[in-house]
């Protein structure tokens, strides 16, 4: 009898442990955003708190327009480096098929930026905690701490981290005074405009888009505009199969 009890205890403890481990690794608590069909939304329990997200309606995004990119790069003093080997980008436009995979019917260029992943592999690679996920879901870089090991750049599966191979100031013609530049030897990427959010403004790219193609809001708030759009449309994410849980979505 005694023996059976113990066995039962061990079995339960083991199951509890497994469940705990699954939860900790995000296996069992799948967040809802990866289910990109509207039917799946209802079945998924919501998450608490703030998680900023972005949605591109690429149907409204005209070929050849780069206003969002220009606005972002100007606001954040992103240097304009021509060489492919040294290029720095917070936002860029790429072939939709290459970006979003075969589900994307169109090969027209669509905008891309850091996905502010809920499970960011860049953060798991950083030896100093200089790239990390904030409580509002923004994946930020501490430029005061980054040692320039480029592990994050290597481990971002979307190639959204850039490194300052040379002095960025040399490649800045008309800097924005309110926002700092970076220096040679650190990485940089889109900050989801945390500098503007804190002043109650929308991201620079969102404001710059004349077509209203970019929505920005709290993914965890069922009444937000972005959630309404997500629930009413078919959307895609970049490489969802990697389990990084991107916070940037696309309507094709």
């Amino acid at each position: 009898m005694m023996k059976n009890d113990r066995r039962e205890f061990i079995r339960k403890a083991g199951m509890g442990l497994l469940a705990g481990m699954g939860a900790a690794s995000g296996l069992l608590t799948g967040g809802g955003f990866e289910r990109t069909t509207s039917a799946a939304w209802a079945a998924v329990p919501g998450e608490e708190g703030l998680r900023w997200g972005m949605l591109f309606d690429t149907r409204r995004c005209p070929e050849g327009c780069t206003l969002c990119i220009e606005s972002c790069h100007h606001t954040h003093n992103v240097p304009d480096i021509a060489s492919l080997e040294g290029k720095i980008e917070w936002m860029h436009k790429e072939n939709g098929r290459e970006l979003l995979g075969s589900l994307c019917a169109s090969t027209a260029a669509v905008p891309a930026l850091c996905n502010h992943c809920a499970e960011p592999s860049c953060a798991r690679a950083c030896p100093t905690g200089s790239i990390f996920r904030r409580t509002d879901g923004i994946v930020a870089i501490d430029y005061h701490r980054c040692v320039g090991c480029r592990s994050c750049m290597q481990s971002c599966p979307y190639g959204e981290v850039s490194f300052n191979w040379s002095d960025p100031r040399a490649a800045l013609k008309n800097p924005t005074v309110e926002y700092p530049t970076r220096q040679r030897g650190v990485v940089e990427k889109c900050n989801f405009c945390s500098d503007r959010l804190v002043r109650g403004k929308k991201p620079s790219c969102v404001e710059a888009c004349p077509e209203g193609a970019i929505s920005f809001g709290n993914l965890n708030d069922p009444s937000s505009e972005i959630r309404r759009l997500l629930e009413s449309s078919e959307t895609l994410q970049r490489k969802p199969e990697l389990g990084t849980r991107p916070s940037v979505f696309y309507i094709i």
Partner: protein
Amino acid sequence: MRKRHILFIGLLAALLMALLFSFHAGTEGEAPASQAAQAAAVDSSSCVYPKEYMHTHHMQVLEDWKNTAAHEGPDAVHETADGRKLQKNLSTCLACHGSNRYFCFSCHAYANAQPNCWNCHISPLETP
């Protein structure tokens, strides 16, 4: 002897599991994000600390902001003794002191201090 082996294996398993958990990169900070920070201003009519304190300790204040602000993210707010809330950001300082272009430099030149703030932050001297 057998028992000891089992104990050892158990300990090893526990250690491995602890390691597994430690490799789970989570979110920095536990509290859900507050929107409070959005209310924090960048400018103010008077300094974050008394003038005399800032004369001798502005480097410590700035060093502290520098080390903590990015990681506190939306909650990087400095509360002054009289209850004002200000963003931990160099632009909070420059909102007032930027109006005198030489505010930082005249002293630093005299004291031969070479802070590296301006490696990245755009100094008032560089603005037209």
